[in-house]
């Protein structure tokens, strides 16, 4: 079995290396990477079958000892259980779809680059290399059995994300966006690293199983970080780790990088910034459930952060005009939902939503990408409209994606989102009331902005220019097939996975939920139909319908002049939303400006004066002078050399024989 796991991880890596480092042709590049990812997808499905359907015993073992230091072994190992099996299938499947889609999307990428730019020559191969490398990184992250490897995968996906956001690095905005993403993620990673360090300090080990089995023993330890402040060790560790998750999974206030990351090519927005990388934080918290269950404080913190993200990021989707940004804000909001679920101890619901979201959100992104291709890389929705008749496949698949997103009954999102709302309703910890309000209100907002986008793009007046309209047609098969392939799970996966994931203990012994917290006891399970009927009588369903209806009247037929009036009346609100609540300005002024000022100060005073002139140049000059002096000892005369040896002898004899 270990060989299978190794193959799953290494196949994309080998693909990435071949496509990236060897000068292969475009065809070879995409063939080899698609083969690699397809192979790991197939094997992942096989592992999924073994772990989930046949109920094989989880695998936890090292494949290679990377380094041994004293008694501590740093190993590369795999922990394969139902949770990682689900993640592996989701990651590799979405990745495979994106790989195939990319063949079409990047087909004439070289035209985007400035004329005669060297980077354009192999940008196609480079792109495939990056996304394969990303798949490798994500797989190491989810299959890891220890914190070190988790951290490696964590950083590696961050790195690839940086590379991909700035893929078109001739655009200044892309460079700005990737720098921003990297820096914001560093903030989160710093917390994450501190958390891992704390675990290493107190548990003396980085292996999951050992840490979890000792967690209970350390649950009541308190530590002093500030003088006279006793903090629970578990809360500190959990919150530190969650800060890492906030960066990666884009939670308020570390969410600012995600909308900007839309500067990257659309396939990676689908793969990285919707389906996989951003879910790393959710996955990590679920994986660490034995730790989080011990800290009520940390869970409340998570709950509130998630609720803030879910509600307020949804509002921002209402005022965006860039098609990809709307989807990006909806991603933020949905990530908020997952985080809320984590905070409510419904880790399984979070993973459930993660999975359904991965399918329908990548579907939406790829659909948006398809529109963008058709529109010749135009992303402004105000210049679209009426695309329904030109792009039928994209239209229908996008409709499916949108319905799944808003939680239309029987679509996958319906089950997962309702499960989260139920769980929050059931939760009793601090902040649960606010969180419940946020997620329920969020349903309306979600429906509103999703269908606002849908109607603006596919219905209504055709607002594009004549030239574009003449060339409108459905993109190639490599683009449309992944859409269809993703549309299927977007519809059905919710109904299939509902029972096993939430009620029937698929994650038994994998995700640990204290009995008192469990929002989905087996006894409450009424089957898919029962869940459906229950859902149809609840607030969220009506709110979603209301949202669709509002969107239809405002942006399709009826009162299409009203949005402009609202905008005029409530201009302060609109400004607030367009400015994204001022997070960017705040960061730009306070953090970026502050660090720049501090940097300039340190540079001028500390670096230039003290270090450069004083220490570096001073010591370098001193060393250089000494070097020039000593080199003259090497005269080239043989008898000087022999004399030096004799002096050495004299000294050794004198010191060690006679003096000692």
């Amino acid at each position, binding site marked *: 079995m270990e060989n299978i796991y190794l193959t799953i991880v290494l196949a994309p890596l080998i693909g990435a290396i071949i496509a990236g480092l060897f000068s292969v042709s475009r065809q070879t590049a995409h063939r080899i990477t698609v083969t690699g990812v397809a192979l790991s997808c197939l094997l992942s499905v096989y592992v999924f079958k073994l772990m989930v359907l046949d109920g094989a015993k989880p695998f936890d073992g090292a494949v290679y000892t990377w380094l041994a230091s004293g008694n501590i072994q740093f190993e590369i190992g795999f922990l394969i259980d139902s949770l990682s099996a689900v993640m592996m299938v989701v990651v590799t499947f979405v990745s495979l779809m994106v790989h195939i889609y990319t063949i079409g999307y990047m087909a004439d990428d070289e035209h985007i680059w400035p004329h005669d730019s060297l980077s354009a020559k192999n940008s196609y191969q480079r792109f495939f290399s990056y996304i394969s490398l990303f798949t490798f990184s994500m797989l190491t992250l989810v299959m890891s059995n220890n914190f070190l490897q988790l951290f490696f995968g964590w950083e590696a996906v961050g790195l690839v994300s940086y590379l991909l956001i700035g893929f078109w690095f001739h655009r200044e905005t892309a460079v700005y966006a990737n720098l921003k993403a990297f820096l914001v993620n560093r903030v989160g990673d710093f917390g994450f690293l501190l958390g891992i360090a704390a675990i290493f300090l107190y548990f003396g080990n980085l292996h999951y199983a050992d840490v979890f089995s000792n967690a209970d023993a350390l649950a009541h330890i308190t530590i002093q970080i500030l003088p006279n402040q006793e903090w629970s060790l578990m809360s500190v560790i959990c919150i530190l780790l969650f800060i890492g998750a906030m960066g990666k999974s884009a939670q308020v206030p570390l969410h600012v990088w995600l909308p900007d990351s839309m500067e990257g090519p659309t396939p990676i927005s689908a793969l990285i910034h919707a389906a996989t990388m951003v879910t790393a934080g959710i996955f990590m918290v679920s994986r660490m459930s034995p730790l989080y269950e011990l800290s009520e404080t940390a869970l409340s913190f998570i709950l509130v952060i998630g609720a803030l993200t879910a509600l307020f990021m949804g509002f921002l989707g209402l005022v965006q005009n860039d098609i990809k940004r709307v989807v990006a804000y909806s991603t933020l909001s949905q990530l908020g939902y997952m985080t809320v679920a984590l905070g409510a101890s419904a880790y399984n619901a979070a993973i459930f939503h993660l999975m359904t979201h991965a399918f329908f959100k990548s579907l939406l992104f790829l659909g948006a990408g398809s529109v963008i291709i058709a529109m010749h890389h135009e992303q402004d929705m105000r210049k679209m409209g009426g695309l329904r008749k030109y792009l039928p496949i994209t239209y229908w698949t996008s409709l499916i994606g949108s319905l799944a997103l808003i939680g239309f009954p029987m679509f996958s999102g319906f089950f997962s989102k309702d499960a989260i709302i139920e769980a929050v309703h059931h939760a009793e910890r601090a902040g649960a009331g606010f969180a419940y309000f946020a997620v329920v209100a969020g349903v309306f907002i979600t429906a509103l902005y999703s269908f606002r986008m849908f109607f603006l793009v596919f219905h209504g007046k055709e607002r594009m220019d004549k030239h574009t309209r003449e060339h409108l047609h459905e993109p190639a098969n490599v683009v449309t097939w992944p859409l269809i392939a993703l549309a299927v799970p977007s519809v059905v996966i919710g109904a299939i996975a509902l029972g096993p994931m939430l009620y029937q203990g698929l994650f038994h012994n994998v995700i640990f939920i204290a009995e008192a917290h469990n929002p989905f006891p087996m006894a409450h399970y009424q089957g898919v139909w029962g869940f459906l009927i229950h859902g149809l009588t609840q607030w969220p369903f009506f709110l979603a319908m209301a949202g669709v209806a509002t969107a239809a009247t405002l942006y399709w037929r009826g009162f299409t002049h009203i949005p402009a009036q609202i905008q005029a009346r409530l201009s302060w609100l609109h400004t607030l939303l367009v400015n994204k609540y001022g997070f960017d300005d705040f960061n730009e002024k306070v953090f970026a400006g502050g660090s720049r000022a501090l940097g300039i100060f340190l540079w001028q005073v500390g670096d230039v004066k003290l270090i450069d002139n004083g220490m570096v140049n001073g010591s370098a000059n001193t060393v250089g002078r000494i070097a020039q002096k000593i080199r003259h000892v090497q005269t080239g005369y043989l008898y000087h050399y022999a*004399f030096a040896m004799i*002096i050495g002898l004299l000294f050794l004899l004198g010191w060690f024989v006679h003096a000692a």
Partner: protein
Amino acid sequence: MVQFIFYLFATVLIFAAVRVITVKNPVHAALHLVLAFFSMAAIWLLLEAEFLAIALVLVYVGAVMVLFLFVVMMLDINVATVSEGFTRYLSSGFLVGLLILLEMVAVVGSHHFGLKAMPAPTPMAADAVVNTVLLGNVLYTEYVYPFELAAIILLVAMVAAIALVMRPKRWSKYVKPEDQVVVKAQDRLTMVKMTAEKES
């Protein structure tokens, strides 16, 4: 009697050794070295190491030093240049030499190696197996591996000497037809591209 012979040869040995490095004429130095070897051999004989003594005389005095003398005579080294700087380095050299000598004497002197610490070896019985036989016995049995290695070192020395000295090349200028045949135009003529220079 034995003591008298020992001190005689020891004095000659030290005198000869000092002369080796102080005389100006290299031929004289080599001859003094011969004398030193010879005195050494005599002292070894006193220690009943007759094989080593004979080997020293035969190999070093008989072969090596004679060769040395030939070389020195043939090269005709300028006496003055060799001794140049001798006085300049004399003081520091003398000081360091003296210090080393003191340090060594303090350890290997009579305090640790005198007759009290290390009793004199008892003379061999008349019917004992002689030194040469003993050496011969172990040389080809117990020490066969080092012995073979020593042989290889000699082989390497030979190979090295031949490789470094033998010059199959002919020094006179002559025509090589085989080289003339394969010569190409590029070998003879190099086209150099230069940017035009303006006079300033």
